[in-house]
């Protein structure tokens, strides 16, 4: 692998930057692999990397029906935080934040992880009570989170409107200073490059159309648009399409797929120092390093696979943004798009074995799985390699819905990214 470094950049500069090589190969699929990952988003590529790096499984492939990171990985608003309410969630999401902290070094790829702080606004008495409860629960779990008064919130984020004549005045905020953002594409590309270097075949434009099982019921092959590929282990990391893919193996899941939209403004000079989220009025905002304001909304109301969603949803979000940040009222929006997110009834993910031997699933991340990319990838790889979960993802089973062990972040936060 061609290492990235200041020295390498200088050296290539002497040569007119002509010596850079493609960052990963584009091989044709082999007839068989020891394991196959379905889905070339950050989660799937990361799982392949950890399988190769930590579990010595190098004869493996990632199959992606489109291009790397073209799913939700490349469509999300990149908010990273770990201040979830329940112990299980704190374990999984904070595992991820810790991996994010070393990821650029680990991959020799700048994923631009920026711990600029994530501030969640409280607008009602109920919000205040819920967020304070989160602050205490998080501290008990060793996860940083602190309560700010409206004035302290404004000091942390000067464009914020804290006047009391708003429809939803700011009554305070919960701030996680270790939270922040990362460069979405770089996460997919960094994992892809590092996995490829360890021998993983990354195959784009290869859609899985069927899963074959043997007489004992275990998986034995995937049917793809590039032919049949034999494998005893399949890890599915297909986000919004998980129900479709697991349906190929006859597995039903507690998932529904919804459109989730985001939009960016024209680029401007740095004005916005952190990430601000408001669950109550459905708006999320940060500023990218390119200068665009990155704005996210709530999901549309109906299930869909169209990657679009209705304009009125974005409009509703922009109304909230304009009231919270009056200075942005005259900004123009540049692009608007949607992704398809797979939502579970308790808004917590599933990273687990399935009832089918050799079939593993990582799904249900819904509106908030980018932040968990390294942790999901790491624990999925563990689960595939050892055929049993890591202690961190052990609670996130499909059976929790049968056994009543819900990890109900939905009730805890109403909505959240």
């Amino acid at each position, binding site marked *: 692998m061609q290492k990235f470094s200041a020295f390498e950049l200088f050296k290539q500069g002497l040569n007119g930057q002509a010596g850079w090589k493609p960052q990963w190969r584009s091989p044709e699929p082999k007839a068989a692999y020891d394991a196959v990952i379905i889905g070339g988003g950050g989660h799937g590529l990361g799982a392949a990397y950890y399988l190769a790096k930590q579990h010595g499984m190098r004869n493996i492939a990632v199959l992606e029906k489109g291009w790397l990171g073209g799913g939700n990985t490349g469509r999300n608003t990149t908010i990273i935080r770990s201040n979830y309410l329940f112990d299980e969630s704190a374990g999984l999401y904070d595992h991820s934040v810790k991996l994010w902290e070393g990821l650029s070094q680990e991959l020799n790829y700048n994923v631009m992880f920026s711990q600029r702080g994530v501030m969640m606004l409280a607008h009602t008495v109920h919000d205040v009570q819920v967020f304070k409860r989160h602050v205490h629960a998080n501290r008990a779990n060793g996860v940083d989170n602190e309560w700010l008064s409206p004035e302290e919130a404004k000091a942390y984020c000067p464009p914020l409107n804290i006047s009391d004549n708003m429809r939803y005045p700011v009554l305070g905020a919960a701030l996680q200073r270790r939270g922040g953002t990362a460069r979405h594409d770089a996460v997919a590309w960094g994992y892809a490059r590092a996995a490829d270097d360890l021998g993983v075949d990354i195959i784009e434009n290869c859609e899985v159309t069927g899963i074959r099982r043997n007489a004992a019921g275990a998986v034995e092959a995937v049917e793809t648009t590039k032919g049949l590929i034999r494998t005893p282990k399949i890890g599915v990391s297909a986000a919004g399409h998980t129900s479709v893919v697991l349906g190929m193996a006859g597995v*039903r899941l507690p998932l*529904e797929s919804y459109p989730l939209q985001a939009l960016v403004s024209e680029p401007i000079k740095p004005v916005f120092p952190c990430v601000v989220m408001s669950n109550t009025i459905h708006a999320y905002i940060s500023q990218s390093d390119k200068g665009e304001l990155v704005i996210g909304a709530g999901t549309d109301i*109906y299930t869909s696979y169209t990657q679009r969603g209705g304009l009125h949803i974005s409009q509703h979000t922009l109304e909230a943004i304009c009231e919270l940040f009056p200075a942005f009222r005259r900004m123009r929006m540049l692009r608007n798009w949607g992704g398809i997110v797979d939502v579970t009834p308790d808004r917590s993910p599933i990273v687990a074995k399935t009832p089918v031997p050799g079939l593993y699933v990582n799904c249900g991340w819904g509106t908030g799985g980018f932040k968990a990319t390294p942790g999901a990838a790491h624990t999925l790889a563990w689960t595939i390699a050892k055929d049993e979960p890591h202690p961190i993802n052990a609670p996130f089973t499909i059976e929790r819905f049968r056994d009543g062990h819900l990890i109900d972040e939905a009730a805890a936060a109403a909505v959240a990214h």
Partner: protein
Amino acid sequence: MLLITCPHCGPRPELEFVHGGEAHIARPAQPEALNAEEWTEYLYMRANPKGLHAERWRHLHGCARFFNALRDTTTDQFVVTYKTGEARPDLKGPAA
């Protein structure tokens, strides 16, 4: 914004409606007879199809009544709407 045809009121904008999830999931006639697996299926498991989806809608800001629809989730096109209690129309979906 979608234009949705309420079987009672005719075509109205999406803003007047709420989505009610998958249709034709009947509450078990004998709840006490169900085991944990069957409860899980009833409460949580969903078809989530890519293609034709039978789903409930409620015309909340209109007649306030529930009704059912067949909608193609690959295009969001409503193929047909029908009243609660009527059987799912026997149609093949554009994307199956």
